[in-house]
């Protein structure tokens, strides 16, 4: 049956990962996403070039929208930087969205519970509490994995829904603004409780600085320190990790706590800098989109910085086509999803080469060369 195909296409494992493809694979993925997007727009009855222009170019042409780009990229980059070390060490933290929300709730405790407490100290305290909140939420899946072997993908993901419901309950119940006409919102933050804008020209707040510092810090840790080395070793070859004397459980705990802190900081920065209060929904799925950012950025902090801007653009573009072409706001999710799929698909090329051979001819060369077991 298999013999009847005249040509066979096979993936052959490379001995050494391709340097070329690890550099260009995200670019190929971007190009494929644009191509698929053009097809999608065409099928929906729009001029594909015009739609792509509205989606990807127009948001970059005005000052206010550039500020929006930074506002949206800030949480994406922060969260994805934390997730990068999880994914590098084979710990699948899918629950950054929940850690983001709990970080926002914890950080908002000061302005909500102590509205009169206005001093320069309140902002750092809010940020620290935000990080602690994210860490606490991330601790749960790490603990369950270490202690009981529970699958962290499931536990961290399910905790997202718990966090969402917790936030919903808080803003409708105990933390609802007493002067807010029964709207499900907390008090608006004011004075020192607000993370200020960086420039006078627009909304971009100091969270962006945190994101840049986070990227630098994480880059340094991964590239220069033993901790970063340990994370990569445990992710790539657990057995070699044991040989090196590293403790995989301690690493699991470490990466979850750090990524929880980053997500929590992103959460409180978003609430304090961009929204100004807690609401039932404070994130358009930043915690999930950040997974795409992390992979598009090669789990590498500088790459994540660039990828965060790209994905932020996908949010803005989604809003833009909603306004200009009356498309559904789901278009943004479709683009993000396509991008992730193409990124993961193109990554195959880093470790494999495509080999097209005619069956029936001497196929002795096909595959297995790397398989040196005798």
């Amino acid at each position, binding site marked *: 049956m298999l013999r009847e195909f005249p040509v066979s296409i096979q993936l052959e494992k490379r001995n050494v990962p391709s340097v070329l493809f690890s550099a260009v694979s995200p670019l190929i993925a971007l190009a494929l996403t644009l191509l698929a997007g053009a097809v999608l727009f065409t099928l929906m009855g729009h001029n594909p070039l015009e739609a792509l222009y509205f989606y990807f170019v127009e948001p970059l042409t005005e000052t206010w929208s550039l500020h929006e780009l930074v506002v949206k990229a800030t949480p994406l980059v922060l969260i994805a930087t934390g997730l990068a070390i999880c994914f590098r060490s084979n710990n699948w933290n899918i629950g950054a969205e929940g850690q983001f929300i709990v970080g926002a709730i914890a950080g908002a405790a000061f302005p909500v519970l102590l509205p009169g407490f206005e001093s320069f100290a309140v902002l750092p305290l809010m940020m620290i509490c935000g990080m602690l909140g994210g860490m606490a939420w991330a601790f749960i899946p790490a603990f369950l994995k270490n202690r009981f072997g529970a699958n962290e993908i499931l536990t961290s993901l399910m905790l997202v829904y718990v966090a969402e419901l917790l936030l919903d309950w808080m803003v409708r119940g105990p933390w609802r603004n007493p002067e807010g006409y029964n709207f499900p919102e907390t008090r608006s933050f004011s004075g020192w409780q607000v993370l200020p804008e960086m420039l006078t020209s627009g909304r971009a707040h100091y969270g962006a600085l945190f994101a840049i510092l986070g990227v630098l810090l994480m880059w340094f840790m991964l590239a220069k320190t033993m901790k970063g*080395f340990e994370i990569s070793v445990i992710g790539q070859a657990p057995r*070699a990790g*044991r040989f090196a004397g590293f403790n995989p459980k301690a690493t699991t705990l470490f990466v979850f706590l750090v990524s929880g802190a980053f997500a929590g900081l992103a959460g409180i920065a978003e609430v304090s800098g961009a929204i100004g209060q807690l609401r039932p929904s404070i994130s358009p799925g930043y915690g999930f989109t950040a997974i795409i950012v992390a992979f598009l950025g090669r789990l590498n902090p500088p790459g994540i910085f660039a990828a965060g801007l790209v994905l932020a653009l996908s949010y803005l573009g989604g809003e833009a086509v909603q306004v200009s072409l009356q498309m559904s706001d789901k278009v943004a999710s479709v683009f993000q999803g396509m991008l992730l799929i193409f990124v993961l698909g193109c990554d195959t090329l880093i470790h494999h080469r495509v080999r097209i051979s005619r069956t029936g001819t001497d196929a002795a060369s096909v595959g297995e060369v790397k398989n040196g077991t005798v």
Partner: protein
Amino acid sequence: MTSDKTAATSSVSQMDSVMLGVKGLTKRFGEVVANDDVDLNIMPGEIHALLGENGAGKSTLVKMLYGSLQPTAGEIIWKGKPVRIASPYEARQLGIGIVFQHFSLFDALSVADNIALSLAGDENIKSIAEKALEFSGRYGLPLNPRSMVGDLSVGERQRVEIVRCLLQNPELVILDEPTSVLTPQEAERLFETLEILKGEGRSVLFISHRLEEVRRLCDKATILRNAKVVGECLPREETAASIARMMVGSEISHVRKQTSDKPESQPLLELNDVNLQAATPFSVTLKDINLTVGAGEIVGIAGVAGNGQSELFEAVSGERLQGHAGAIRMRGMDVGRKGINWRRKHGAAFIPEERLGHGAISEFHLSENMLLARHQSDKVAFQWGHGLGIIWQDLVRKATDRVCEMMDVRKPGRNPVAASLSGGNLQKFLVGRELDRQPSVLVINQPSWGVDAGAASRIRQAIIDLARSGSAVLVISQDLDEIFELSDRIAVMYDGRLSSPLSAAEVGREEVGLLMAGIGISEDRHAA
């Protein structure tokens, strides 16, 4: 044209009835020849043993017969016609079935589901379950098709694999070390099944290290050594000792003895009743292992793979800890409860069997692989920044260069990734990485496994030099030549136990071969 099974069978008149013939089959992996001009004939209704030490080329031959490897030269003849087996699918179509040593079953699915997954076509699960039940009755392989595979014992899982194989109605069944994972009782049942298959005119290619069972069961045996066929025999007319002799090749010239003149030297490595529970169904439990290695001494541990050698390595290295501290002592210190880095910092060095994935990481550069084993023992040199653990990349690189120069590691570029080195060069690097520290205790598993002759002799020389400078060396190897070439004393591992060590000058190859086959490591000897 019935074949007379008791007669030697390579006469021309019988060639027509040969079920599977192999002529001049050769397989090369780069410079390594895994199969060299191999001939093999299997008759219908014959249980044919394929014997050889690890690395002799048995697996490669089997993979070519099953279509997962393609030969470099030579031909395979199936029922008189030359065939090219391009894939396992084609092998199954021809009528060749295989039961692998390590099972490929899904734990979370039922027996019937697992069987259905491997069958082509769209037969429904129910009729497959019925068929499986029928086959399991016919061949004496009791099975419940509805059981979850995860709940089954190792022996039962093997039955699933065998039934799955038989459902495809193979004329030749290949069994790759089927008894290595079975209890004696389970093995006994398997033999009954094989007799039934034989009675139906099916042939069996039986791969095993256990010579007694081969003698009992097999009609004929082909023996591989160093990629070549070194002999055929009728196992029933041989003794286990004579077969073992063929496997290990006692005619190899005598090796130069490295005598150690310090019989009562200071003990540097002591194992006192080391026990270790098997971590997985495929690993071995270590039972009461006692051994002392003195300064300046090389002790060799021989044995067939999978008898507890890698578990012993894990215990001695500290990758897995002992229940009490005194079980392992190094340089007079109790280290049984100390981790691998503590042991390293106190003068021990370890080189595991698997280079990629254990001793080194394939996608890491050599300098990173240097750091992998030495980040704690050389902390002062390689790290700075008071607990921040910032890596002195430059010093690590320099140490890497020094090791590469010392061991003559040939590599593309200054600091390439480990995967780009040949096996021999990577092994030289891994040995050099440890020797560079002048360890007082060295434990090395398979020093020259899959390594070309030049690199092997360089590595062995380095090990001898280290011991002569006063270190204690424990060498674990399946290669008897290597064991004899290096060791002052030799012990043999079998089924998680270690025989008491014998002086290499006094023990013969044949005696070691028998111990390796599990003959002679009796309880009383162990106690003695």
